[in-house]
């Protein structure tokens, strides 16, 4: 099955991004496809290349980047939400791309299921 994901919260403050990541990992392990992960609201902060957590903590941003590299998952950051919060191409982490809200709607239409993670 093709599953679309919406992440509405940034990393570390809220568990949403962790839950979404664990869900994606489990879905891929079960043989499903992640059609797209769309980052909205403060969720766009998951794409900041400047993120540096302490060494004994998980690296949420790199974890998403690796998921994109290993499984060709499309990680899309909403342009309007990103510009509001200072996320631009120059500080965008690997595997993410910036695009419009239309990508979220398209995902809703194309995916078999849509799951939202947020506050």
């Amino acid at each position, binding site marked *: 099955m093709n599953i679309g994901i919406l992440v509405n919260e940034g990393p570390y403050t809220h568990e949403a991004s962790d839950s979404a990541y664990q869900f994606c990992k489990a879905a891929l392990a079960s043989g499903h496809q992640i059609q797209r992960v769309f980052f909205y609201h403060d969720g766009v902060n998951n794409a900041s290349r400047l993120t540096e957590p302490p060494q004994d903590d998980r690296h949420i941003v790199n974890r998403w980047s690796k998921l994109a590299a290993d499984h060709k998952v499309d990680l899309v950051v909403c342009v309007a939400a990103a510009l509001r919060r200072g996320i631009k191409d120059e500080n965008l982490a690997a595997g993410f791309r910036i695009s419009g809200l239309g990508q*979220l709607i*398209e995902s809703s239409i194309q995916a078999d299921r*849509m799951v*939202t993670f947020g506050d």
Partner: protein
Amino acid sequence: MSEATVKKIMYVNRKAPYGTIYALESLEVVLIAAAFDQDVSLVFMDDGVYQLKKGHQTKGIETKNFQPTYRALDDYDVNKLYVEKEALEARGLSEEDMCVPVEVLSAAEIGKLMEQQDVLLSF
């Protein structure tokens, strides 16, 4: 994308405006979604009903008043707006307090509508 695909997409709004950005950014999604010719509906539950409370005056907090945008939704053919009856009652509000025409439904009736959707997006 197949042009024949029309999905029932419901936007669920349960948060008050201005205290957080969710209401505004949710509305931005709805405006974009209108261009995709899907079967769109909006539901306002819990504090989400405050988004439609008439008479927002945001000068004092130097924030954009986005209430006029709700009134523009009809121009985008987004006209299925549902408001939760229990949420209005719990907040001392009635249908007359809403800034746009809405259909008032009980939580259970909204639950039934949710069952019929292909996609539910909540912010």
